[in-house]
């Protein structure tokens, strides 16, 4: 089974990298761009787990290691299997 986890800064936290990307896009003339938030994507391949186990395991991994809950939030989905 393959899962994808998206980690990004909480909306209340300033994202200087996202701001820099936004400014670059505006400089390039993409006036439609209203805001940019930057994050990280993890693709994790799991073995010998069923859906139910994954639903317990993935948030645990994300909360404990992949994201820092003080500044970041995460979402995840099963992308294969």
């Amino acid at each position: 089974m393959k899962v994808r986890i998206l980690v990004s800064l909480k909306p209340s936290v300033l994202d200087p990298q996202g701001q820099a990307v936004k400014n670059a896009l505006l400089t390039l003339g993409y006036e439609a761009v209203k805001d940019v938030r930057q994050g990280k994507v993890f693709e994790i391949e799991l073995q010998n787990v069923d859906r139910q186990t994954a639903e317990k395991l993935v948030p645990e991994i994300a909360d404990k290691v992949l994201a820092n809950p003080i500044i970041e939030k995460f979402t995840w989905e099963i992308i294969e299997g």
Partner: protein
Amino acid sequence: MDKTMKFGVVVFPGSNCDYDTFHVLQNVMEQETVFLWHKDSDLQNVDCVVLPGGFSYGDYLRSGAIARFSPIMTEVKKFAEAGGLVLGICNGFQILQEAGLLPGAMLRNKNLKFLCQHVYIRIENNKTAFSRAGRKNQVLNIPIAHFDGNFYAPPEMLETLENKNQIVFRYCDEQGQLTEEANVNGSLHHIAGVINEEGNVLGMMPHPERASEKILGSDDGRVIFESIIDYLEKKAGQGKKKAARQAKPVVSPLPPLIGNL
């Protein structure tokens, strides 16, 4: 020879201020100092653990995020919970935050630049084991060198830090004013260093070990090490005394790097 205090400098793969810190503790402050390898689980009876600066484990994932799972950190946590003194400098500060021993988290610097420069910090609380040799509002000239030093904590946490006097150092200008320009990395409330509620774990982004000898431009960083030694000596009573520090400086060679990655 009289006994000195014993310091342990933790070495992670990617630590790069370990030798500077070791040098200052051993040769400038004249204290017994040992390296503590990240795979060790023995703190060798040190009186104070120092987590030095650097880029532990390449700072992959997040600064300090992986270092906190190393075996030595289990012991550092126990040591801290038992009241032992722990000082985290720069990356060491980030590791202590990731390990949950200190509040808050570090965001990328507001200008997205790696900042390597001398800054001024103001002692906000001189009643701690790490700042007692300084005066309140004393301005120290100490360098920083980091990419992620933009201190963040949610509003309730910030309020607690303020109310409980846990903010020990703030970025300021040469006169001690909290100007916007002086807050180079964008830290909330100008925070450069915080202490835990119990008062035995301190993290600071500036590098006192790089400012402990006049020849390097500033020796203001000595205040931090002098504070720790003073605290430990008072705690130990008459047993361990100052004599060794007043002895003629002996520059001992540094030990070779220990262990395998």
